[in-house]
């Protein structure tokens, strides 16, 4: 194997390994990543139940809650990560290491995806057990395709954010916070995005997770296409485009931000 490729593959594995093994050394993740997220989602289930006992709304919330795990991961473990690394003094080491910075980002994405998936599965399974959420899959292959395309595009977006956040000062934390509830609102995590109206839903669809979630609801809920914003086929096509665009944008943005950071001497600037 090409030695350069081998080194980069090792870098990807190494960065992912730290996340998976590091977290497993702290048993508190079992509570914080599995049980507690379900509780936050449960509150929305009970609001719907107080208004209407139709189990459709329970399933809708559970699916949105499960997918919110990925968005949280993108914000706090991808977008913020290079900023954190800079603040901790690790970014300098990444910069002088003989590897592509994209390998570090891919490793972070792989490790983060692993944990976000655990969280999503916990919400999904506990949602079915505790709240009798009902899912009827109409097309398994379309569901898998939609999910993985959403993830490619979403983690591509996370890598793009990571390179941008790298040069942020203390505002990085606040910016991430700003992308939490407002994105839950725009992305239709707890109601069909269609409810927002065509213009706002289209704006929300700039986020891959909005389209992924909308399509997954159409493929797994008894309401089928009636609550959908766009057809599943259209969403798949848009997600393919988004995956390519975000990954390329992340690559070039990383090069640009690295150059800018070196020029302005911000790559090792901490606590500003």
């Amino acid at each position, binding site marked *: 194997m090409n030695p350069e490729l081998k080194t980069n593959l090792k870098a990807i594995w190494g960065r992912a390994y730290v996340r998976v093994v590091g977290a497993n050394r702290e048993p*508190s993740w079992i509570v*914080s*990543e599995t049980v507690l*997220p379900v509780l936050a989602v449960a509150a*929305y289930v*009970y*609001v719907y139940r107080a208004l209407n006992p139709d189990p459709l709304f329970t399933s809708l919330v559970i699916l949105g809650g499960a997918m919110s795990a990925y968005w949280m991961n993108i914000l706090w473990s991808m977008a913020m990560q290079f900023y954190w690394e800079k603040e901790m003094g690790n970014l300098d080491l990444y910069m002088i290491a003989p590897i592509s910075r994209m390998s570090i980002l891919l490793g972070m994405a792989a490790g983060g995806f692993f944990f976000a998936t655990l969280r999503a599965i916990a919400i999904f399974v506990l949602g079915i057990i505790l709240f009798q959420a009902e899912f009827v899959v109409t097309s398994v292959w379309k569901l898998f395709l939609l999910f993985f395309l959403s993830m490619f595009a979403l983690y591509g977006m996370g890598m793009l954010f990571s390179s941008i956040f790298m040069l942020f000062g203390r505002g990085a934390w606040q910016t991430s916070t700003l992308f939490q509830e407002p994105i839950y*609102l725009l992305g239709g995590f707890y109601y069909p995005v269609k409810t927002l109206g065509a213009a706002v839903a289209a704006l929300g669809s700039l986020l891959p997770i909005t389209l992924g979630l909308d399509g997954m609801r159409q493929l797994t809920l008894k309401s089928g296409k009636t609550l959908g914003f766009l057809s599943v086929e259209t969403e798949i096509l848009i997600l393919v485009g988004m995956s390519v665009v975000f990954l390329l944008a992340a690559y070039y943005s990383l090069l640009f931000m690295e150059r800018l950071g070196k020029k302005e001497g911000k790559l090792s600037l901490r606590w500003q």
Partner: protein
Amino acid sequence: MKDLAGLDYINLRMGSWLGWQIETNWTNLWVYGLYSLARPIASTLILVLIFLVVPQGKLEHPLFVYTYIGNAFFMYVYMVLFGISWVIHEDREHYQMLKYVFIAPRKMYYYLAGRGVAKLAITTFSVLVTLAFGIWVLKIPVDLTEVNYLALGSGLFLGLLCIAALGVILAALSMVTAHHSFYLTEGIAGLFYLISGAIYPIDVLPGWLQTLAQAFPLTYWIELIRRSMNVPLQSQVLSVYSWQELFLVLLISTLVLLIASHYIYRIFERISVKYGLVDRLTNY
């Protein structure tokens, strides 16, 4: 008890000042004002849309005002709880100065509470804007001339003390957990959101969760706030209490929590010093 009685006002004041600077001086005040409104307005609009999406819903539904007021005041729980407990991770892992705060000749307990005061000020602004938005834009039926301001003011004060005590307990737990326990704080806030009946009557919860809700002080706090604002009763379970009884339950539980938080904090502080956790970095 001597420690508990001896309030460290200087540390409380310095913690508040530092908290305010950290929270706000990364940008100008206008941007900060917009930023501090984005999250509460978004979470409020999520609830509005939930009411609109359900066929039996609509904003005239009697439950809407109940949900709206509960959600508005619950912001204090999330922000103050988070504001206090996150200090441990922020100071330990980000600014890496928790060890210096530890060895300073002041009480850490009041430093933490002081950091919560800054969040309190910011959250008050968000709550007021949310209430104004509800009353003037969404036309929720709250008559400001009919509000029982005595019950509202005293209830709010006690509730905030109660939240601060819970925040210190969570901060104590954060001392022995890794950075990823950011999710722990989010999750605990989610648990409180679930059992406090902030956005629905606790009657819709299953029996065991209702029992848990009735043992939780903030359930009474949110109900007291709603009563003081003349929001129509929705919970059969809590309707048996007058506002004075709700106040009494809140008073007793707050006192118990304040004392408990002091001792719980000291226990976890000792554990973190013993096992060398005060300056560890777990930010992977």
